[in-house]
């Protein structure tokens, strides 16, 4: 009885029906936070005394990089849950997380590159942080490719879950890269254990953007997982009923 919630959590139908009312809320909250953060960061936060206005890219670069990493955790943990408890839903979450993570990693690489040109004088540098993020991008692409490579759904899910778990090795390397190798990329700006090296007037809009990106990620992951649920359950009665009477 105590485990009932856990098994219900593994039911794709329960998940689909439960998350339907969440979507408009997530959409409104993420849009409000992201728009507020962008206006604040672009127009009202003070310019950096050293980097001038180019630093304003931080308000999209850092949230995108945060979510690229958080998304990897979600993907790998879902894969592990799928492997251990042989549940269907976690695999659907894992599969949906891969393209979203790839796009967020791509955003952080591209915005970082654009930020690098006026700041460091180069579009690209084989710096430890940048290189490990590029590897993260390839891991996400590998996940997408592996999902397509198998005829059987089950084999594809298991193989991708193993890849996601092996790829976890890269995550601490990304975090520690700015401390282990003293290269171009600046160290972390926001620290949870000590004082952040950023003024509150610049930090608050950044926090708004980070929270906005988290809510946005939740929305997009739900939307994609729900499609995956429908596709994999397309022969069940409840999906047929849903198609016949869309709510």
């Amino acid at each position, binding site marked *: 009885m105590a485990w009932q919630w856990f098994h219900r959590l593994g039911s794709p139908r329960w998940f689909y029906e439960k998350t339907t009312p969440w979507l408009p809320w997530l959409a409104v909250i993420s849009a409000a936070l992201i728009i507020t953060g962008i206006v604040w960061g672009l127009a009202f936060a003070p310019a950096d005394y050293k980097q001038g206005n180019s630093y304003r890219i931080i308000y999209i670069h850092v949230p995108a990089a945060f979510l690229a990493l958080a998304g990897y955790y979600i993907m790998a943990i879902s894969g592990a849950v799928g492997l251990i408890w042989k549940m269907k839903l976690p695999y659907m979450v894992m599969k949906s997380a891969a393209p979203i993570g790839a796009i967020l990693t791509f*955003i952080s690489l*591209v915005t970082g590159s654009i930020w690098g040109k006026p700041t460091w004088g180069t579009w690209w540098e084989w710096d430890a942080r940048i290189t490990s993020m590029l590897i993260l991008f390839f891991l996400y692409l590998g996940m997408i490719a592996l999902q397509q490579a198998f005829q059987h759904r089950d084999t594809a899910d298991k193989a991708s879950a193993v890849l996601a778990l092996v790829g976890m090795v890269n995550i601490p390397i990304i975090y520690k890269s700015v401390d282990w190798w003293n290269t171009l990329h600046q160290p972390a700006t926001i620290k949870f254990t000590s004082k952040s090296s950023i003024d509150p007037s610049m930090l608050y809009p950044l926090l708004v953007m980070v929270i906005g990106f988290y809510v946005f990620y939740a929305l997009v992951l739900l939307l994609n997982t729900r499609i995956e649920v429908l596709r994999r359950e397309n022969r069940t009665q409840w999906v047929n009923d849903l198609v016949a009477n869309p709510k």
Partner: protein
Amino acid sequence: MKFQFDSLADFIAMNGHGPFVWAAYAITLAALIFLVVSPVLQKKAFFKQQEKMQKIARQQLEGQGAD
């Protein structure tokens, strides 16, 4: 909190960093919009396809009944 620029032109130019900042924001926004629009379109396509299949199934069922 105050607007950090003297004029709109100043805001767009961003002391010469304008092209970099605006390009970064434009690419990001385009990617975010794609992330939301893509599953919405896929869902529409899924429902359309399933409706078609249900229709075919119904017609086959009716055809058998007429024999």
